[in-house]
């Protein structure tokens, strides 16, 4: 290397840092090299535009994450009774109230219309796909061979999961939905983690640069590297989370039912901010409803 601009090792007794006039000189010489004419400095690289954020329907959630990003995958994970479905229903309610067409891919056919109606979901704008009803041909033959009840249950789970993935693929390719939600909450983590990462990348690519919010709830993170936003929910540990007296004066006096569910959420991963993700948590309560 005969170039005078390269200094591999500092001479003994000299500092590594260049003097200011020396740096300016080097930069001017570098910019004059024809080969580097088309190379933009790192400080001038185009910044990917931040996605549009929409409300999730829960104030505390929005305060923590800024909302749900359009054109990205958002994943909510947590164990049973951690409030995943409540967040999903709230997000669907918010999206349908914005007059957006939404789709819910219900892998375990667990959607409760009464809860959704109470949360304010506009059913006219919601496409509900109930998976698991029709056995796939290959799985059916396999299930016929297995006499074991547990194996049969697992086979049904695999069928549901496969249907959910195929349906999601079709919905995302069709386009035009404001939100596509995949409910894997009833699928055991062992089954859900078998979803190939390429599927999640395909889904993420399908919603990229579209106004669709891809929303997934599951027991544990399924697509951590694809998700733009990953939250973990936990049920509240305080015993006061449960009220023995129902709220509302219209309830009969003898009725003692669940009043509210306390939820704690932690932001595990966010690709929307350039700075390192800090440990951020929130807590909110969901109100139990019952039709009178």
């Amino acid at each position, binding site marked *: 290397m005969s170039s005078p601009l390269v200094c591999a090792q500092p001479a003994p007794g000299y500092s590594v840092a260049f003097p200011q006039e020396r740096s300016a000189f080097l930069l001017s010489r570098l910019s004059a090299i024809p080969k580097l004419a088309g190379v933009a400095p790192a400080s001038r690289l185009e910044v990917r535009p931040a996605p549009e954020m929409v409300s999730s329907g829960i104030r505390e959630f929005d305060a923590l994450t800024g909302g749900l990003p359009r054109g990205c995958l958002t994943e909510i994970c947590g164990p049973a009774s951690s409030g995943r479905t409540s967040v999903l229903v709230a997000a669907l309610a918010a999206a349908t109230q914005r007059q957006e067409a939404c789709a819910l891919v219900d892998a375990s056919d667990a959607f409760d219309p009464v*809860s959704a109606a109470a949360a304010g979901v506009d059913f006219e704008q919601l496409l509900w796909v109930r998976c698991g009803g029709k056995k796939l041909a290959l799985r059916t033959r396999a299930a016929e061979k297995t006499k074991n009840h547990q194996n049969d249950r697992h086979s049904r789970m695999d069928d549901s999961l496969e249907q959910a993935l195929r349906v999601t693929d079709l919905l995302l390719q069709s386009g035009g939905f404001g939100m596509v939600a995949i409910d894997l909450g009833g699928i055991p983590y062992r089954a859900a983690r078998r979803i190939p990462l390429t599927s999640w990348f395909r889904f993420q690519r399908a919603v990229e640069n579209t106004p669709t919010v891809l929303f997934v709830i599951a027991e544990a993170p399924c697509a951590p590297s694809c998700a733009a936003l990953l939250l973990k929910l936990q049920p509240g540990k305080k015993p006061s989370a449960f009220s023995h007296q129902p709220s509302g004066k219209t309830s009969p006096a003898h009725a003692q039912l669940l009043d509210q569910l306390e939820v704690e959420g932690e932001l595990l991963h966010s690709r929307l901010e350039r700075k390192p993700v800090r440990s951020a948590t929130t807590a909110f309560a969901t109100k139990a409803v019952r039709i009178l």
Partner: protein
Amino acid sequence: MTAFACIFVPDFPLEALLRAEPELRPQAVAVLEGKAPLQIVLAVNEKARHAGVEPGMTRLQVEACAGLVLRPRSPLQEAATHAALLDCAQSFSPRVEDAACDTILLDLAGLETLFGELPKIGRDLARRASDLGVEANVAIASNPDTAVLAARGFFGVLVVPAGKEAEQLGNLPLEVLFADPKLFDDGQEPERLLETLARWGVRNLRALAALPDVALSERLGQQGVRLQQLARGATSRTLVPVEPPLIFEEVIELEYPLVLLEPLAFLLGRLLEQLCARLAARALATQELRLQLELESGWQEEESTTTHVGTDALVRPGRAPARQAFRRTLRLPVPLLDARTFLKLLQLDLKAHPPGAPIVKIHLAAEPVRPRAAQSGLFLPPSPEPEKLELTLARIAGIVGQNKVGCLELLDSHRPDAFRIQRFAPVEPQGGKPSATRKPAGEPSDAVTALRLFRPPMRATVTLYDGRPTRIACPKRPELQGEIVWVAGPWRSSGDWWQQEGWSRDEWDIALQAETGLALYRLVRDLLSGGWFVEGTYD
């Protein structure tokens, strides 16, 4: 200036057949009429004519001709072709006369400002007819009868200038005049008249036009005078406009029964393209497609179930083919006019509901409606395109089942899980103010504790203490076992007690200690059967 156009289809029965089977156009084709074995040739195409086949020959005579395709006459296909011709004419002018099954007249007065000069209108008419699958002659003249004669006599598109009718028609043979049976409905025999004129040495219209009027009237009467006026192009009459009914139907009768979906889809695609072209010619779309498949009679159930039948087979072994006609109706939420979308929807529908027997005849009808007019906006919320959405829904229904996809509707009942699935047709977003029933967007509200249902509910064994559940065991779910750490309830409800399907139940909210914390469930006791069920989990 008045102008009339005539669309004439030579060898109409043959054209109707070729419209249904366009792949036969390069071959020599003859259409037969009558019952076997006394069938005679009704119409032939140019290649068959070169091969020596003429109308009137018997089947026995033409069967010796190599490479000749013989087809029976199809009145249904002729009716469909005639309707297509009317649609073609109606797409240009509202004043259309249905002169004959192969002849359509239309009034072009005032259309030059809309469609251009008369030659251009003539070419456009021929092109539109060709798009509908019919090769037609088009002639434009200042009176309807001259237009008809020119269309019958000249190939392609011809515009007869005003005042030069006799000159243009002069070279036509006399047979052109005698092709219209309506001229001789007063009892006269056209053959005798033609023979008389031939004996006089009159061979073409110019010679007939040159005969002296009075002498012709003395010898042939008013019929002769009328023929002479037609030959001179000097007749004048008003058009008899008809309002063609909005019936869009296409039929194909098959030579051999079809048993696979792929060839059926090929034929359906052709029918759909013709239907869509006809609907487009009338500026209409469709919201309902009715498919009727006539199945082969006498087809018996296959006994052997080991026969390999592909996934696209229309006949499934083991299905009883008791019916003769198979009908499917495709209803769409919005008017569409896309043959490819219709074909895909029909394919998916037939895959899900195979006819069960070989198909010998396909009948497809479209219910016409006004096309959808939508004004899209830049700032409206996203909404799926109706065409894509219909295809997507049909494909999803093929994966999860017909009744497993759609839009929810809660029923007016306190019965648990009372809902029904409807067709998903999202409301198209409108600009302006949101409706009164909607909450304002962007204002988060309090979250509601959602329930995750187990469908069907899981049977459980519950231990009671002092009338309250204290322990639960559910064999199907290992996590649903153990001491109940918290319980609330009961919430008693009942309904429909006046009916057979009455229900009565107590609901309890319970909490179990799980590895990750407390898990909340809804426990239900059916008061009619006494059984305990876990209905779902609060999440």
